């Protein structure tokens, strides 16, 4: 069995986010590091939001994924610094989110409608609520196609 940190990082990084299953935790920038030490795989992760209820599920999913790949002993560590930011989401992560109807915050903080591509001019894209179905999203409404959509909050 190969036990390179790169392989451990790849397996952990491929774990889907438990709440936003279209993206992996690697694409979200949650996986901070991976190593193999004293016979066990050690994965370091960082929370998106400090109270994110998905963190426990993510830890369990990482253990399961590595166990399935033959790692008998797995440790998942959590680090806070540097604090997670939306800038840590990868390009493929943003693309996967957009495909499922979740917009990026946009440089000005106003997202582009993921359904019709409307950018808020001349009719606005309105923020309905700064908080939405997960801590990291806000709720918007597009005045062009009239559909509601979620956007990742800039953090």
């Amino acid at each position, binding site marked *: 069995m190969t036990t390179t940190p790169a392989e451990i990082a790849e397996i952990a990084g491929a774990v889907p986010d438990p709440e936003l299953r279209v993206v992996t935790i690697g694409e979200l920038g949650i996986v901070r590091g991976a190593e193999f030490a004293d016979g066990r795989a050690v994965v370091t992760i960082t929370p998106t939001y400090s109270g994110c209820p998905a963190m426990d599920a993510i830890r369990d999913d990482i253990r399961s994924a590595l166990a399935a790949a033959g790692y008998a002993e797995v440790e998942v560590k959590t680090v806070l610094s540097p604090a997670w930011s939306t800038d840590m989401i990868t390009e493929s992560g943003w693309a996967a989110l957009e495909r499922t109807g979740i917009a990026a915050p946009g440089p000005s903080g106003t997202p582009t409608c993921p359904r019709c591509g409307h950018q808020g001019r001349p009719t606005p894209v309105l923020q309905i609520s*700064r908080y939405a179905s997960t801590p990291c999203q806000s709720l918007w409404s597009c005045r062009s196609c009239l559909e509601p959509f979620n956007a990742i909050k800039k953090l």
Partner: protein
Amino acid sequence: MSETATGVELLGLGDDALIASQRLAEWVSRAPTLEEDVALANIALDQLGAARMLLAAVGDEDELAYRRDDHGFRNCLLAELPLGPGRGDLDFGWTMSWLLMLSAAQLLRYTDLAAGSDEQAAAIGAKAVKESTYHLDHATQWMLRLGGGTEESHRRVQQGLDGLWPYGHELTEGIRDRWLAIVEPVLAEAGLTRPADRWRPDGGRAGRHTEHLSYLLAEMQSLHRAHPGAQW
């Protein structure tokens, strides 16, 4: 670590966040709109997240949250007060006045932690600052809308402000001027009257609390005390 100056501060801030989280959770399924229900639940969740990081830095988080009696808590009195004029009341205007006062202070405290020399405390502060910014913004937006809204919304948000203002002294000890620099412009823009500084109740940081904390803890701790160490 809990005996050091940083430890004492982290415990106080952790207790503020924990008790605030429990208070805010009273709004779940009872907020005026679905969006607001989700917002208040999310803010409560952020508070709980901050509390877990802060309490885990000074000891066993479960032990600290579930096994201390009221005199063991070091939260400021504001955090434990009912979110309305009396015990068991929930008033939205009152709650937004409370959230404005609390989140402005938390933002400043976390900013100071982030800039401090204790590495772990700095990491927690840097994380919590981002979330606090959203809480303060949320409260600010509502203060402007309620203060400049109807006669009734104005009356209720002002009533909350008047009732809670005295507790702002303990909340902002050492950061009063910076806190006023955040809060006063919001009140001015919302057309609200900044209450006069009169009495200054305190004692929370020393473990002397209002009776409201006892009721809150009874609800928060009863399950854990009935089933110590239970997991699910």
